[in-house]
């Protein structure tokens, strides 16, 4: 997927003007949020499991080199093949090479953000290999020639009528506009593709270093078909997906689905270890695991951003994010949307390729509260903001805003001057105010009041009230005493 994260502001304007999209987003994210809340409310172990998950990820990443070596050894010991890909191009070349050697002309794919990240479909098509997305949502947006708009609900912005029209135009569908009829049609159509495909391509949710096992989590069963029907299975994983032990999966399996969709467990979890064994009747005969860096070692070398490698792609941070809920996934301009996308996109592509994304957050902290591996997303966004600002300053010098903030900071550290200027500001602004609010500031400040009011500074400012309140005899050093607090 070609990143357009530089045009974030344009994307936002488009998204905000699309009322259909906003209604769909509000419904979907609201539903996911309440499902997740219910799931964790009935799950007293949730907190402890999140701590364990965090610890496992820290350990997995802190010794990533050893775990990757161990993983490769274990996969090869079970008769699988392992390929290490430094970047997207290398990964695509490897998959194309595997396909060519076996004369594959049709590949089926189950949903995988990592393959979106490396733009595998485009590369395979370019090499003359047809690729069919088999997750229903991904299938729909592949037909519509769009990118996914949500980590786990990629076609959340499409209505049933739009899907029916798409099926009619592209696949000759002649049924009604009902959801079950559309699903039944997709099942039959895609079953044919599964049977004909020479290769199945999947992502990986977790890879176990100790045993060479990959875990794939899904609800539809298309990943099971992708890894079972075609003779060759190629799984593509970001190198951060490794966990040390099989038993670690017990922790992640209990929090992933609860965080993502509020289910106790997704419909299907496949734990696959190597290709089918001798005398087994089905399953891929050949198994390839492609392990991808593609910018991840940059995050690994970055003490501030390293923890974003712990992400298990549940999507919970998207659903609670007030920014994502207003603009949806496409606006972020690359594969990973929402708060985690606002961190990963500039981290993977470089801050200059996505300079606005770290600012696409109110820093409300809801994302960090729900993150199953406790990534401090608001802090990581602040780190990135500091970098973007430092870079701007280096290349362009200070802008007007930075002078304003510097003056502001100076004022705040000089209390008597601050008080005096607050009084002055009230005096100057009072003629513009109506009921204590200003709905149009003059001159260059007008932009600020275009979509919100500016409050008139209070007649009795907070610091004055504070002093009055706590200057009574029982208060020491302006700190409220316990008796006063319970008054």
């Amino acid at each position, binding site marked *: 997927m070609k990143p357009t994260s530089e045009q974030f502001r344009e994307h936002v304007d488009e998204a905000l003007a699309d009322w259909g999209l906003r209604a769909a987003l509000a419904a979907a994210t609201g539903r996911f949020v309440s499902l997740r809340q219910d799931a964790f409310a009935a799950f007293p172990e949730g907190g402890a499991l999140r701590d364990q998950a*965090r610890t496992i990820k*820290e350990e997995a990443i802190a010794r990533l080199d050893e775990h990757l070596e161990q993983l490769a050894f274990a996969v090869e010991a079970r008769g699988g093949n392992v390929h290490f890909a430094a970047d997207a191009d290398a990964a695509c070349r490897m998959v194309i090479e595997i396909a060519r050697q076996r004369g594959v002309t049709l590949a089926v794919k189950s949903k995988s953000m990592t393959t979106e990240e490396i733009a595998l479909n485009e590369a395979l098509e370019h090499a003359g290999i047809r690729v069919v997305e088999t997750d229903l949502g991904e299938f729909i947006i592949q037909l519509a020639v769009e990118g996914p708009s949500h980590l786990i609900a990629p076609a959340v912005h499409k209505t049933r009528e739009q899907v029916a029209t798409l099926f009619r135009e592209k696949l000759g569908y002649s049924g009604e506009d009902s959801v079950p009829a559309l699903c039944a049609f997709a099942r039959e159509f895609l079953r044919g593709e599964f049977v004909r495909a020479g290769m199945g391509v999947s992502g990986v949710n977790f890879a176990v270093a100790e*045993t060479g096992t990959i875990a794939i989590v899904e609800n539809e069963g298309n990943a099971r078909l992708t890894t079972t029907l075609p003779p060759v299975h190629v799984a593509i994983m970001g190198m951060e997906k490794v966990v040390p032990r099989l*038993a670690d*999966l017990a922790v992640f399996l209990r929090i992933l689905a609860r965080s993502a969709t509020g289910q106790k467990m997704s419909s299907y979890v496949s734990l696959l*270890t190597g290709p089918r064994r001798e005398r087994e009747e089905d399953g891929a005969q050949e198994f390839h695991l492609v392990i991808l860096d593609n910018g991840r070692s940059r995050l690994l070398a970055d003490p501030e951003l390293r923890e974003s490698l712990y992400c298990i792609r549940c999507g919970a941070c998207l659903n609670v994010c007030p920014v994502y809920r207003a603009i949806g996934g496409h606006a972020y301009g690359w594969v990973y949307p929402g708060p985690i996308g606002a961190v990963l996109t500039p981290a993977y592509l470089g801050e200059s390729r996505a300079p606005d994304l770290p600012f696409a957050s109110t820093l409300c902290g809801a994302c960090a509260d729900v993150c199953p591996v406790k990534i401090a997303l608001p802090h990581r966004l602040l780190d990135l903001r500091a970098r973007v600002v430092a870079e701007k300053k280096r290349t362009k010098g200070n802008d007007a805003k930075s002078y304003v903030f510097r003056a502001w900071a100076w004022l705040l550290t000089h209390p008597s001057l601050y008080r005096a200027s607050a009084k002055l500001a009230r005096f100057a602004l009072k003629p513009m105010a109506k009921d204590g609010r200003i709905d149009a500031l003059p001159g260059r400040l007008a932009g600020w009041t275009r979509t919100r009011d500016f409050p008139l500074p209070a007649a009795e400012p907070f610091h004055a009230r504070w002093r009055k309140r706590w200057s009574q005899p029982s208060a020491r050093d302006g700190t409220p005493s316990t008796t006063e607090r319970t008054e």
Partner: protein
Amino acid sequence: MEPGRDAFLARVRAALRVGHVSATSSSNGAKEPAVARLEDERASRREALARLRPLLVSRFRDEAERVGVRVRGPVAAGDVTRTVGEGLAAHRARRIVASPRGFALPEGFDVLSGRDGALAADAGVTRCDFAIAESGTLVVIANEDAPRLPSLAPKIHLAILRIEDILEVPADLFLFLSPGAPPSSIVFITGPSRTGDIEQTLTVGVHGPGVVEVVLVAEGTPSTR
């Protein structure tokens, strides 16, 4: 080892040194028990699960039903064949694929086999190796007598489960798997195949079975493992 791999791992090592962060907690995630301790741990967990069995059976039933699975029984081992036949008849299945391992199939159905059979069948009949009560999950492990497609390709999946094989949480499964290399495929099945991809409307059977039914077998049935 090809040069790409060496360079890849060297880059990872260099990055690890530069970006070193101290962990926020010092414990070590899941502990790896020594072999002797593992046997003890298994034995005591097995006992605990046996004590919990009536609770586990009802929890499994509740959770399975919550995700849309019909649970029949527990029936005596001698009644499994008949109960499976009733389940198949209720859904008007005629052609079946099966890996019932140890149970006879009911009469009166076309029993197909192989990949083409699985793709053409109305229903698949399988044994379950384990179940997880907490989430109503069936665990189906592939081997030479248990192919992957019968629980996946047909629109109906009928699963036979011994109540002794109902575990409480996923960690129990990993405790009881034999040490060493895991089987080629372990699949956790929780309810029917489902999607909400069009307008968030839950629809079952989009790729895998839309109907999942379980026949519980009362205590005392021999294990297939």
